[in-house]
């Protein structure tokens, strides 16, 4: 058997949150491409249906369930529906998250609700999904949890309180999962650097990657193979750890800010 055969996910059921677009959609398609059956969740139905169609067009199986990860009863219902459809869950990808009101505000301007919503969206949602799915993953004989954090989970930025706190919380939540459920469940993190998700304004804001060591921004499709890797038998001893895909940003400590680094790059092209 070649080492590459371990990438096969046939017979596995993967739940992907935030699967309606961008990174979540790219990861769902990659998991389906590797043979997994998909449970796609997000709040916006139209986008979920699109992702489901794309999975089915590629010959995969997809169940879509609209769900708000910040609401634990909505999450519990979603996981139960996944179980009634497929009978088991093997892989959980906690990808839902992103910008909420209050982000980028100075500390004194952040309202209580803005803080709570930001943490609920980017941290508590992953707890809700993990809590609901883990008993099923254990019942299936073990599996994988993949949490999507960010460079902001390891480094901070000026006036970025909510997102950095939530994403750093997700890093340590993952380590606690790893400590608790090893060796039956492996819990690891994906930390994307600057990925504009096709948004031209974001690309421009990040100067098209000019200040990223590799000189470019990331493409959502580049995260697909990474999620398959972490969901596969190739990473059976990897636990509680992050793979950072950021074009060298964190290695030098000046990204992902999108602005000129304190120390100029050797070749500022």
């Amino acid at each position, binding site marked *: 058997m070649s*080492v590459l055969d371990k990438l096969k996910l046939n017979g596995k059921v993967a739940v992907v949150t935030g699967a309606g677009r961008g990174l979540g959609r790219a990861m769902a398609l990659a998991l389906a*491409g590797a043979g997994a059956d998909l449970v796609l969740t997000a709040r916006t139905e139209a986008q979920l249906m699109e992702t489901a169609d794309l999975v089915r067009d590629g010959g995969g199986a997809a169940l879509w369930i609209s769900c708000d990860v910040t609401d634990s009863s909505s999450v519990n219902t979603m996981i139960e529906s996944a179980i009634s459809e497929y009978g088991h869950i093997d892989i959980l990808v906690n990808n839902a998250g992103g910008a909420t009101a209050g982000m980028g505000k100075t500390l004194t301007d952040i309202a209580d609700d803005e803080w709570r919503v930001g943490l609920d969206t980017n941290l508590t949602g992953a707890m809700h999904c993990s809590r609901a799915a883990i008993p099923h993953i254990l019942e299936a004989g073990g599996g994988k949890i993949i949490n999507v954090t960010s460079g902001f989970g390891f480094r901070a930025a000026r006036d970025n309180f909510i997102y950095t706190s939530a994403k750093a919380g997700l890093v340590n939540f993952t380590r606690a999962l790893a400590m608790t459920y090893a060796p039956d469940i492996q819990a690891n993190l994906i930390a994307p650097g600057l990925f504009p998700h096709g948004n031209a304004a974001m690309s421009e804001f990040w100067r098209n990657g000019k200040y990223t060591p590799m000189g470019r921004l990331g493409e959502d499709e580049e995260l697909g193979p990474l999620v398959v890797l972490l969901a596969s038998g190739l990473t*059976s001893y990897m636990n509680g750890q992050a793979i950072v895909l950021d074009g060298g940003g964190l*290695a030098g400590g000046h990204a992902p800010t999108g602005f000129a680094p304190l120390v100029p790059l050797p070749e500022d092209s």
Partner: protein
Amino acid sequence: MRDKFSLDGKRALVIGASNAIGRAIAVALAEAGADVAVATTTPLKDEETAANSCANEIWALDRKGFAQAIEAADEADVNALIERTVAELGGIELLVNAHDLPFAKPAPETDFAEWRRVIDVNLGGPFLACRAAGQRMLSDGHPGGSIINVASVLGERGLANGAAYCSAQAGVLNLTRALALEWARGGVRVNAIGAGWTEGMAMAGDDESRAKLERYLPYKRLARPDEIAGIAVYLASDVSAYLTGQVVWVEGGALSHV
């Protein structure tokens, strides 16, 4: 997805193929489609046999390759090895530095010569190989490359009696980051695998210390070498084209513990 991870057409050199991790990585790269030259390093006398047996395994997979024994900290040896790889395989896109000189001794009893030897082999060796391979990979018309340095959890955590070894391993992690930044726009990626306690490692120690270790580890067992090698295939493949300057830890959660 299998095709995307394929290493077909890539030429690899794995230094340190007589240790369990290096050997597993060399074989995994070959299984994924790469041609793989393997080298082993001093001081063990039976290393050449180990290298030959690893090369036999690579040939059995219908891949090209050769085996050579070198002195890891010798510039001329390392340069000649890279030249031979380019000459026999037709080029070099992948370099894996997996050789490892284990060393444990209380610091007051450590001679400076011993310290220098550990640093020279475990940190100087990867530098020499990166430099020689990097010169090739950065040259005009070359498609670039991916370099993987195998380091240890002892590059991130200290250990009593490990002053020299831990210092060298920590050096490898930052060698990785610095080269990654320097070469990011030249198409050469440099990453490290931070290996946990693995079967076949010399530092896994005697039966008693091994039993203690297994009690402490979240998995209650050491890693198998093939569990380290899987990450090497990912880092070697073009699917990780945006990944550089990183340490990917494969340690079963050992570093997550307080």
